[in-house]
């Protein structure tokens, strides 16, 4: 069994190495036809840019995406600089240089990978999936009978912030930086998933398709790990199945199929304000332009946030979204599960958490307010601040850096819910409902707690569960996503997630059940 695992690990690492090395290979040649096509598609009016391209890029062969990207982006920047000086605003290329460059490089690539997309899919995704499963599945036998087996979690350098953890951190952060800020470097990765994209939406894969496909793949493989690890715990099994379903069907398949039918890409479960650009002008315009369907999406999006989300939180707690439906939660609960013990449990981090996550919520609402005011009034700026600027800052700081680079990249260091805990405006909104108007709580079982600390250690949201449990007090916290792991790891059956009457949900106690009845009455009612 150990042998199978080692082979699996080898295959996985090989797949990972091939994947990483793809960035560095391939040939890129921008033909005049490619340039024409992109210039026409994009409606480029800058002859300076076209001249720059013809002089430095077109007809030349580049052997890495870095060099061709560098030439294209400097062509854009040089042209823009001149146009801006001359106030030729219609000639300025407003696209992000690397996104624009991606359009060209994606078409310009040639060679081994583009010609053997299927083969390279197997060498990257294929080896990765196979290797990971060969590593994961033998644990059915190796880790012994069903039950909580966190043996050695804190001795393993992958899960105790050791060198493997730091390596994973660097890898994940690099991946997100490339994905968000240098898509033109990773066209080879997108080639590998082109055939799948074409079969779904009919289009070639963008970097976002690549990300979506990778996301589903990683979640599926790591869900197998969850199914094995928690095979004694039906709550975990169902929850894992649910997040996997919503990710694959709602976040991946349906939007791609919508595109095939020339409808706007839309993820029906992605609620505002997590879906922070829902009210952006381009989205509203696109929805309104797509007729009945667009109108339905518009109404659905608003009803989801205003009615469905809070009502469901009232009945079931925010877990119905955060750990049963949400894509971010889905990745955190599968890929992130091995890192849950790394979240900080100190009172100080709770304080930071409240300031930051509610700050992001206010930021999101303010930005949306500006956006809608601009939309209906037709002005570009509110109170002298350009709406576009606020949107760009939010998109960069929160949408890309916080949710992606930090949110997932920092799994191996700060635990798997960094984004959900400190950054997600939807989580903040759901949390307020959960704390003040909900039937959900984690019930503490009388006086049974022995303060062992497993619940707190394995709480991904950094809640000091034990602090409540050892006082016999139910856990009612805005941040709790109801993953149910505190209850699962409790050795004494102290914790139960449940939805019950609001009355008596919050029950601070001084003297725990089991002691003198008169003393309990005397102290607890004082």
């Amino acid at each position: 069994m150990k042998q199978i695992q080692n082979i699996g690990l080898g295959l996985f690492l090989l797949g990972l190495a091939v994947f990483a090395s793809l960035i560095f290979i391939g040939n890129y040649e921008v033909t005049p036809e490619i340039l024409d096509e992109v210039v026409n598609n994009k409606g480029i009016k800058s002859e300076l840019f076209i001249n720059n391209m013809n002089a430095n890029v077109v007809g030349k062969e580049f052997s890495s995406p870095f060099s061709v990207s560098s030439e294209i982006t400097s062509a854009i920047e040089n042209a823009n600089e001149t146009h801006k000086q001359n106030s030729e605003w219609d000639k300025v290329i407003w696209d992000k240089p690397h996104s624009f460059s991606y359009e060209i490089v994606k078409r310009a690539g040639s060679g081994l990978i583009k010609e053997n997309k299927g083969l390279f899919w197997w060498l990257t995704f294929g080896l990765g999936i196979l290797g990971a499963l060969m590593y994961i599945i033998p644990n059915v036998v190796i880790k012994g009978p069903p039950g909580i087996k966190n043996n050695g979690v804190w001795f393993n350098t992958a899960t105790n912030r050791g060198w493997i953890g730091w390596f994973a951190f660097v890898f994940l952060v690099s991946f997100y930086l490339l994905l968000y800020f240098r898509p033109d470097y990773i066209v080879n990765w997108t080639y590998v998933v082109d055939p799948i994209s074409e079969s779904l939406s009919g289009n070639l894969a963008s970097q976002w398709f690549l990300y979506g496909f990778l996301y589903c793949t990683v979640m599926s493989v790591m869900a197998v790990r969850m199914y094995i690890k928690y095979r004694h715990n039906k709550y975990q099994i169902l929850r894992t199945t649910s997040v996997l379903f919503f990710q694959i069907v709602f976040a991946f398949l349906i939007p791609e199929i919508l595109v095939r039918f020339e409808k706007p890409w839309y993820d029906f479960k992605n609620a505002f304000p997590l879906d922070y650009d829902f009210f952006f002008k381009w989205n509203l315009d696109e929805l309104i332009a797509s007729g009945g369907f667009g109108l339905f999406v518009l109404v659905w999006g608003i009803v989801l946030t205003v009615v469905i989300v809070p009502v469901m939180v009232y009945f079931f707690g925010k877990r119905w979204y955060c750990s049963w439906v949400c894509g971010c939660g889905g990745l955190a609960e599968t890929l992130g599960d091995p890192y849950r013990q790394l979240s900080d449990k100190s009172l100080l981090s709770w304080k930071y958490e409240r300031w930051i996550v509610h700050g992001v919520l206010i930021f999101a609402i303010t930005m949306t307010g500006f956006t809608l005011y601009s939309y209906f009034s037709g002005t570009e700026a509110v109170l002298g601040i350009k709406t576009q600027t606020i949107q760009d800052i939010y998109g960069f700081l929160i949408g890309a850096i916080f949710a992606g680079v930090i949110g997932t990249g920092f799994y191996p260091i700060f635990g798997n819910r960094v984004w959900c805990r400190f950054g997600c405006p939807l989580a903040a909104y759901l949390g307020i409902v959960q704390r003040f108007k909900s039937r959900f709580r984690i019930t503490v079982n009388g006086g049974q707690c022995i303060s062992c600390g497993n619940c707190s250690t394995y709480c991904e949201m950094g809640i000091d569960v034990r602090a409540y449990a050892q006082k016999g007090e139910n856990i009612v916290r805005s941040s709790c996503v109801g993953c149910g792991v505190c209850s699962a790891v409790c050795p004494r059956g102290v914790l139960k997630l449940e939805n019950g009457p609001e009355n008596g949900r919050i029950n601070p106690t001084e003297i725990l059940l089991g002691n003198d009845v008169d003393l309990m009455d005397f102290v607890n009612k004082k």
Partner: protein
Amino acid sequence: MDHIVIIGNGISGVTAARHIRKLSDKKITLVSAESDYFFSRTALMYVYMGHQKFEHTQPYENWFWKKNRIDLKKGYVESIDTENATLSFSDGSNLNYDKLIIATGSKPNKFGWLGQDLKGVQGLYSKQDLETLEVYAPNNKVCKRAVIVGGGLIGIELAEMFHSRHIPVTFLVREASFWNGVLPQEESEMINKEIRSNGIDLRLSSNLKEIVSDENGKVKSIIIEETGEEIPCDFVGLTAGVSPNIDVIKTSTTRNELSRSIETGRGIKVNRFLETNSPNIYAIGDCAEQHEPIGDRRAIEAVWYTGRMMGETVAQTICGNKIEYKPGHWFNSAKFFDIEYQTYGWVWAQPKDNEARFYWEYKNGKKCIHINYDKVTRKFIGINNFGIRMRHEFFDSVLTKKQSIEYVLEHLADANFDPEFYKLHEKEIIAKFNTENGTNIQLKKKSWKRIFQTN
């Protein structure tokens, strides 16, 4: 301002300190030779198993003590001078007190076995025990086999710990079946099976004869009394129960005049107010021994929960609300490898004359419940539940209201505390009872209203 000194920073001492702080402004000093800060003793096993780091076993952050003005003093109390109300520490320093709470806990039993003080032979109780365990049994190369002597809760924990590091274990249990002085035969056998299915070499009805030393004074093997078999091993865990740790009283007695010495039996003798015979000196937790046992309880209760309750109680007395220690209904819990155990009320190993039993076991052999009730009055007396979680509030209320076995079975859905979506067995359980007893009990649907009334 009164100075309250507490010897021992375990659950009893810390609970007392916390509650005294809530109730008063008295000066509080918490003394420990074992650790800088309070930690959960019951969680030491998880540190060895790698589930947690030691710091995770500390329920309060380090700033907590200063903020709550609980002074921590690390030091070993050598003697108590009751006449001058002074403690003497092994480093020569002294500390005066106005009121003293002794909460020194337990220490592992040693029954005079040959070789019981060799290197690599120890119990598992203190932080220091965990540290020496890491020295003598860090992995299965240094420790090729470990022998555990004594089949109680700590013994089986130790077995699980070694198992987590793939160290082969021989487990010597004096009784004919695991913990059968406490558990009825059915449950005891279930745990025997659980131990064996995890690959532990369980030897029932086996006593330790002697522990054999190598040339360096370290354990080399053990010999079994009954068979004379010699088992080579690198570590011996002595887990044949614990006794009150009253060393400090013993050394003090020799220094104090007899009339001023603190009275001891196996533990420190206390009355219902947890007062010793010496004025202003209290004893709580594992080290305290009641003159007369309370109800069906033992005179010495070495349990986390009772330690906590005594701490809660003595704080009231010290802060002027003098009350007796009157624990409520008995409850306890443990985990045996993958099988969780809870108990509410009393289920003795052997039924008493007035008692009848009802036992149900799930077909996978890893879940069961065992209910004890009065043959004549039908009054519910207690339940053991294995592999199924039950609500403490429910059974506490049932016991207080002296409900019947029928009531308990009808409301079993209210009692269930398993995570959502777990397989429910209530119908099956009741069907079995009905068949065995010719009754027609019907399960009532779970009712939040009832569950909350029990609060």
